């Protein structure tokens, strides 16, 4: 949310320019949360099959987060360019890599770190108020 406030002086001269990027940013955090919940749910599936999936709270929570994140993406796309916003979704990889390290103790290595740095800088380039 702080990003929106920080953007407001700029937003006045070019309305709805950076706000969509901030929205997609929120999307990626929700999307990563969804994936972590799904992984948690998948780890504890007792009864395979549809009923077991529906009774699985983390899994369903994950799907709900995905739903919310999709709605946010659509709101962002209303005013933003698709070609600019869609690649920003790759930030999800960054959060998932960090979260799976923290929560599931998946190992993190040089390749992943380097990849994260590249993705973040790429998103930085896209997010920098577009010069056409």
């Amino acid at each position, binding site marked *: 949310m702080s990003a929106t406030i920080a953007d407001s002086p700029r937003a006045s001269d070019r309305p709805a320019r950076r706000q969509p990027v901030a929205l997609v940013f929120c999307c990626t955090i929700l999307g990563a949360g969804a994936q972590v919940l799904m992984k948690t749910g998948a780890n504890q599936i007792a009864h395979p099959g549809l009923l077991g999936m529906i009774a699985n709270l983390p899994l369903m929570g994950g799907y709900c987060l995905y739903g919310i994140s999709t709605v946010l993406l*659509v*709101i962002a796309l209303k005013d933003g360019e*698709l070609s600019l916003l869609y690649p920003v979704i790759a930030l999800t*990889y960054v959060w998932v890599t960090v979260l799976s390290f923290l929560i599931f103790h998946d190992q993190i290595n040089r390749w992943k770190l380097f990849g994260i740095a590249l993705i973040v800088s790429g998103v930085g*380039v896209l997010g920098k108020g577009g010069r056409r």
Partner: protein
Amino acid sequence: MLLVLVASIFGSIGAAFLKYGAQELHRGWLHLFNWRLAAGVSLFLISSYFFVLGLRPPGELSVLYPMVAVSYIWTLLWSRIFFKEPFTRQKMIGLLLIVAGVCCVGAGSR
């Protein structure tokens, strides 16, 4: 591998439909439920189905991640064709960095 390529194409078309449907929102929030958005979400579901099929052995996540990044390139193409969004140097550089980054994360997931 081919399955995931198919998944990436479906996913990118899904994104294009989301954009197409999102433009309806200019007419009011009630237009959140329109067939274009529904089509976009359905295409995403189809895409994830193919993705999961591709993940079955011997599919490896490290190989499949980069294929997902390819969907960003498709999306750039659809944006240009259907929404007349210009290619800019900024988008090219950003996309290149992101695709390279996703490939690296994939390489690290072996």
